């Protein structure tokens, strides 16, 4: 272990005590109810960034700005052959990826990640794609579809339109992204999003959330400067996600982080069921999952306690570069 590595491991421990105090003092506008068991565990699990909560968190944007990406459209009952239409336009746009840091992104419908696409298995999906950007783009969906709908050979030049049409299957958590070359550039710039296919037998009702893990290489050196979920760094640390304890929380999770081999999701203070790709009933009962790029799954949490619980990548570096947030669990 080098001196530097030693430091990296030692620094959070040193910072733990004062930061734990800060976390307990409750700086967010949504103050947690007193007397719950969550806080002490949280501060011990995640020293070093516990202070980054509420207004202390250096996140851009206002409250509810990411609601469109966080909350998926409602599921529809199984009805084979029904047409589900979406239209996506790729645009060049400057987005604020961390507080005060602006990045020239390529974005489907102007957001990174792009809009959530949802269909029920056997729906006929029709996605009209317009390239409003300055480079050739495509949409490559994960799932089962004909070769000419794969978004690899049908390059859509700037100003052109292409319609992807295929039956939605198989059910599970899927994703989509641009497949133009250079691939790394087109994904790093922000052309990706979540694609949910609901099973014929509907999943039980739940508080549904979408989380797309991503990163931003703002200085172009082939390494991410910021990490996030659904876009801006530290957004859900500044605006904790409010959920009810009485109902299951279902998270459609996908990793679209470029440059890094893996990303991960870790929940504090509780366990969850993790369904890889959401394609079967098999699950793992855990509090940490690891995903390579393109890997995804469904998380179901039945919160035991109320209070504020942190979630973040269990790569400390990603956590401290923006991939960190809180659930505000209420009764």
């Amino acid at each position: 272990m080098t001196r530097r590595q030693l430091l990296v491991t030692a620094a959070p421990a040193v910072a733990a005590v004062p930061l734990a105090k800060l976390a307990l003092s409750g700086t967010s506008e949504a103050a947690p109810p007193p007397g719950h068991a969550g806080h002490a565990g949280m501060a011990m699990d995640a020293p070093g960034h516990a202070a980054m909560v509420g207004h202390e968190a250096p996140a851009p944007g206002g409250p509810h700005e990411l609601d469109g990406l966080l909350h998926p459209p409602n599921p529809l009952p199984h009805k084979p052959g029904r047409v589900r239409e979406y239209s996506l336009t790729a645009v060049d746009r400057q987005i604020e990826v961390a507080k005060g840091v602006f990045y020239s992104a390529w974005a489907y419908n102007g957001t990174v990640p792009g809009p959530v696409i949802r269909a029920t298995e056997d729906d006929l999906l029709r996605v009209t794609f317009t390239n409003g950007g300055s480079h050739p783009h495509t949409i490559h969906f994960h799932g089962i579809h004909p070769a000419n709908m794969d978004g690899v050979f049908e390059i859509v030049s700037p100003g052109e339109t292409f319609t992807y049409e295929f039956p939605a299957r198989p059910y599970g958590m899927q994703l989509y992204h641009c497949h133009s070359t250079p691939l790394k550039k087109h994904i790093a710039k922000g052309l990706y999003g979540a694609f949910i296919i609901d099973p014929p037998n509907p999943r039980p009702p739940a508080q549904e959330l979408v989380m797309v893990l991503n990163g931003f290489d703002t200085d172009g050196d082939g390494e991410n400067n910021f990490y996030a979920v659904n876009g801006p760094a530290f957004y859900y640390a500044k605006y904790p996600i409010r959920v009810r304890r009485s109902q299951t929380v279902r998270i459609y999770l996908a990793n679209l982080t470029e440059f890094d081999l893996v990303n991960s999701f870790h929940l504090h203070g509780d366990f969850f069921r993790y369904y890889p790709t959401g394609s079967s009933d098999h699950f793992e009962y855990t509090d940490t999952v690891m995903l390579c790029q393109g890997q995804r799954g469904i998380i179901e949490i039945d919160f035991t306690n109320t209070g504020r619980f942190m979630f973040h990548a269990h790569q400390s570096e990603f956590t401290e570069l923006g991939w960190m947030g809180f659930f505000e669990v209420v009764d």
Partner: protein
Amino acid sequence: MASTAAGRLGPGAWRLWALLPLLLLVGIVSLFASSGASLVDLVGRAPPPTDEFDIRRVEFKPGEIRIRVTNPQRPKLTIATVMVDDAIVPFRLDGPGTLGRLRSSTIVVPFQWVEDDPYTIGVTSSSGIETTFDVPAAVETRGPSPRGFLGYALIGFLVGVVPVALGLGWLPSLRRADARWVAAFMAMTAGLLSFLALDALAEALGLQARLPSGFQGPGLILLGVSASYLGLTFVSQRFSATGRRERSAPLEGAALATLVAIGIGLHNLGEGLAIGSSIALGELALGTFLIVGFMIHNITEGLGIAAPIARGERISLTRLVALALIAGAPAIAGAWIGGFLTSDLLGVFFFALAVGAAMQVVVEVVRYVARRAPGGLRSGPVIGGYLAGIAIMYATGLLVA
């Protein structure tokens, strides 16, 4: 036509006419600027700015890190996020968040740092470019305090005044020495000053390379060298003029010793500055060994001042003390400046001043030796003395390198 007009306006009118090119320049510049600099579009597109900060100084205080940043480029630069070891940290600003060209601000990061550990500090601009600064080992930076003031003064006194004063102690033996020996010591003075000139030039060049290009380091060095060289030339002319000698005669005696002391003093100013800032930034472990090294290194400087006054009338003790202070005390001032301000810009300028001063004094000493030494410049003692001067500085320099 102009001359007839000027003639009509009177003899002082050439000054008014001299303004004409300036007025025309202002007019053309404003025309060009108002056209939106579309000229650039004809030949291509300007590349985007690098958007890198110049991190001038990182200070470690109990529970906080202070980062001094400057905008080295023409376009404005905004501080967006701050990282310590690749982790985004909360910070507050002591100064503006958006910096104009060459403007500075201090970023204050509350942070429980670990003594002696290395840190990487990163500052990211609003365009997402991260500038990093490596700190080899975190040590607490002490602010200006009576204790620190005294400490730096003592260091400057030990490495500057003491060795010079000790070196002057060779004066009685020099007075009894043979003329050839005195010539050898004079040549040695020239040798050690040549060494100091090159040493200061290397320091100045090294420091200027760290400056943002906007500060034009090489130009600043030339300015400093010329200013001190020509300044001392002027002073030495005045010395000869008041000394009832013909103007072209070389300086000797107390006047030459004073000149040597000024040259050495300017070098010690730079040396003190370098020592002071190194201590302040935790780059230098200032042990007893290093202090002793500097004392041995600098004792020959005293000998250099003593050599010109070895012949001729006696020098009073107060005069000797004054010479020791002229040569040694600037080390104290340098240590204060370096310890509390740490400015590479000042460092470059001071070292450049030292270069010019040392060069000028070498010229004066060589002129003296050429005229006074038995056998002139080509004699064995002179050549040997000059080489010995360089060799001694090199050898004792090993103690502080």
